[in-house]
Each structure stands twice: as C-alpha cells, then as structure tokens.
C-alpha cells in the first residue's frame, strides 16, 4: 500500500502509470517525477522501498499542485471569471460552452441531457 498525496492508493501498476491516478498528474508529469526521483519507469509501486515512496511524496509536495489544492484553484479561477462580469464568466454562469462553440445543436456536455419541448413535432 502506497499512500501518495492524500487518498490515492495505486499499487501493482508501473510507477508512472500509478501516479496518474492522482488528480493533477498526467503521463508527462508522472515521467518527470520518476526521472527527478531516480526511479526506473518499469518498476512497480509494490516494489518501491519506503524511502523511495517518501521521496516521491516530497517531490510532489514541493513541485506539483494536486488533488484538493488543484480543484480549489480551478474553482477559484472560474469564480473569479464569474465575479468579473466578463463574457467567459457569463458563459460559466449560464452553464454554456465558454470557448465559442456552437449551441444551436450539441453542447450537451455543458447543457446536460436534452429537455423535450412541448409541441415541437409536427
């Protein structure tokens, strides 16, 4: 059992892959971490010594924003836009696409499931 950055317990997978289970760490960052700490990419999490796990944990604490902190930062950024009253903020408020996509059709990710309109069928 390896506990890195709070709640995440990825084990029996290769180290770079296991690290991507942490929010805020993707393939690229995971590889960088392995390189910085000096862990072979082919090794698995359950083969790591306590010292190595600690080294990873310390590296992440010092250099990467992950999990709760990252989520908080993201929501803060969105909230900032909404408070500003700029176009991007307005789009966030209305739960519509922010980056100029069409909304005539599609945009279901932001709008949620389609709502039936009464009397639309001929």
């Amino acid at each position, binding site marked *: 059992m390896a506990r890195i950055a709070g709640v995440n317990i990825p084990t029996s997978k290769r180290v770079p892959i296991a690290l991507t289970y942490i929010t805020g760490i993707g393939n690229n960052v995971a590889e960088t971490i392995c390189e910085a700490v000096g862990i072979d990419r082919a090794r698995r999490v359950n083969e790591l010594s306590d010292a190595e796990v600690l080294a990873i944990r310390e590296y992440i604490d010092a250099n990467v924003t992950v999990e709760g902190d990252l989520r908080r930062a993201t929501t803060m950024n969105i909230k*900032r836009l909404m408070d*500003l*009253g*700029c*176009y*991007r903020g*307005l789009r966030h408020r209305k739960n519509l696409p922010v980056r100029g996509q069409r909304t005539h059709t599609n945009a279901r990710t932001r709008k949620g499931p389609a709502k039936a*309109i*009464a009397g639309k069928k001929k």
Partner: protein
Amino acid sequence: MARSIWKGPFVDAYVLKKAEKSRDSGKSEVIKIWSRRSTILPQFVGLTFGVYNGQKHIPVAVTEEMIGQKFGEYSPTRTYYGHAADKKAKRK
C-alpha cells in the same frame, strides 16, 4: 493562437487619447468607445468606459483584474430572454 509579444498589446489609438484626456481632466465620466477589440491596459484602471455593444454604450468600470482582456468581453452583444416554453415551465 496567442498574439506575438514583440507586437505589444493592441489598442486603438483614439482609446488611448481619450483615456489620457479624461485622466488629465480628473473628472469621473464615462468614456464612450466603440473599439471592443482594444486591450485593457494598466493605465485604464479606475476609469469608466462606455463600451458599445452595437446598440448602446455599456458602462464598464475597469479594475485591476481586467487588465489584458479586451473591452468587448465586458459588453455583451446578445440579449436572451429565454424561450416561451421555459416561462410556461417556470410558472407551474
């Protein structure tokens, strides 16, 4: 794609001139501008601009956080009152 840094921020010349004028006069009045494409510069902070949205000038009080964005972002061009069906659904 982002704008090249060597070009500097884009601002229509007349916006700069008007801003400077109102700065010097010291009065707090709405500066009417049509240039929605102009970047908001640090020296605009504290001034109020009336940004044209195609119909009228929307007053925008520039704050520090707005620097680097465009004036047009603060003056929506579309009005959406919702669909008739939405209203009916809400009333229920």
